């Protein structure tokens, strides 16, 4: 009997607690929905510091996030009406083609193969393939030096293929699932360099806990113009996004976003690329 009572009391407490939290959640939603009700879904990377990163508290930060927020604002959507969607490299084309996202800003290099399935606005950033090495390592000065070095990149990535096919075919290349795994090896001297786009590398090197440990070489091994991917044939949206990007460059927000996201890594950014119409 006593046990039954205790159980009933616990159950009641639980129900009250749940209702209370539910109310809390509701009221929050109401206040945020007071603006225009329309939402916009944008695809970004969730796992690249400096580019697009989901922080532990659930918010998002990075250059792509800043660009996407600016563009969304120009399209008439407040920052709070943006729904961020994870866009891993392999899924970007399908997210756009299926209409799951309005556009994708996820370190998305413009190339001909991708243009078959999606249209690109921009480019909004010109990145280059580059190397990240330990701050005290001066033994690598050009791509050929890599032939006798241990190198790390992400499996199947364009950067890994460039090294393998043309830049340094004899380099000992370790390919992991993500760049974070490479940093362990770089710190432990198991690998000598980490290679991918300099913007991504700068994002990693700019993380507070890694500051001063690594340096970017600035070799410019390839050109990677980042564009905003959108549905094929949607010229109206493309023009709007291009106008937004032009405005972002001219009013200085672009420069500010670059400095804020890549600055701490001594990243020498290219000037804002010319937007093709």
């Amino acid at each position, binding site marked *: 009997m006593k046990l039954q009572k205790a159980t009933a009391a616990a159950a009641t407490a639980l129900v009250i607690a749940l209702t209370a939290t539910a109310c809390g959640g509701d009221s929050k939603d109401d206040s945020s929905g007071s603006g225009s009700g329309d939402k916009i879904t944008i695809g970004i990377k969730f796992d690249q510091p400096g580019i697009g990163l989901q922080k532990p508290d659930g918010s998002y930060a990075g250059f792509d996030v800043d660009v996407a927020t600016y563009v969304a604002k120009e399209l008439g959507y407040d920052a709070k009406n943006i729904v961020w969607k994870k866009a891993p*490299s*392999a899924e*970007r*084309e*399908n997210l756009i083609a299926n209409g799951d996202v309005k556009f994708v800003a996820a370190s998305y290099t413009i190339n001909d*193969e*991708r243009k*078959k*399935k999606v249209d690109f606005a921009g480019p909004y950033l010109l990145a280059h393939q580059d190397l990240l090495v330990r701050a005290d390592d001066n033994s690598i000065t050009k791509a050929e030096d890599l032939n006798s070095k*241990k190198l790390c990149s992400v*499996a*199947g*990535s*364009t950067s890994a*293929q460039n090294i393998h096919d043309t830049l340094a075919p004899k380099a*000992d*290349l*370790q*390919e*992991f*699932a993500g760049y974070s*795994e490479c940093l*362990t*090896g770089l710190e*432990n001297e*198991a*690998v000598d360099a980490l290679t991918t786009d300099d913007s991504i590398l700068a994002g990693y090197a700019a993380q507070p806990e890694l500051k001063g440990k690594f340096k970017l070489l600035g070799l410019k091994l390839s050109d990677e113009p980042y564009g905003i991917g959108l549905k094929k044939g949607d010229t109206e949206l493309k023009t709007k996004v291009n106008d937004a990007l032009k405005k972002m460059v001219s009013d200085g927000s672009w420069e500010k976003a670059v400095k804020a996201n890549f600055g701490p890594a001594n990243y020498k950014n290219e000037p804002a690329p010319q937007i093709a119409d």
Partner: protein
Amino acid sequence: MFDFLDSGQYDLLGAFWVTVQLTLYSAVGSLIWGTLLAGMRVSPVPLLRTFGTGYVNVVRNTPLTLVLVGCSLGLGQTLQFTLGGQDFKSIGFRLAVLGLVAYTSTFVCESIRSGINTVPVGQAEAARALGLSFRQVLTLIILPQAFRSVVAPLANVLIALTKNTTVAAAIGVAEASALMKKMIENESSALFAVFAVFAFGFIVLTLPTGLLLGWVSKRVAVKR
């Protein structure tokens, strides 16, 4: 639609050959280590029994990705434990086999233990009465009968192992799914065709295994 296969850019057979090699080495290793583990779990020595049970329960419940990445980052990159490999290609392959053996052997162990349970207790008692030692009872009487009854479960473990080798792509082993990542990066407009090619490749590998071992299992099973 499948014209990317003719470009000569991708070594499809080579990638699947690495998958086959990974599977074979890991299968042999897990069979040996799994049998030893099963022996430990039924042995009369409490310490061995505890170790066997602990090992199986811990490793079996650890995600394979974690086991393999742990092998590569922990053993390889941090402790410089390379199993005699010279470059990342051979180190990665050997560490992947190590991780796959450590993981798969727990499932082999449990299959064999279930097989041991199908052997009537009277068999062991009779063998003990003849004066055979525990090792003799296990290797001469119990295990031969147990193996014959677990061919089908072991076939399932082997098929699971074949597919699990794809996880080795996470630590840079150039097997089939690593090539698939590369192809998706380059041929993004033919995404589903790429998927279809690799799905078909794995069917080619696993379906005959299942059919063959299913037939063997029927042939050798002990009729009781």
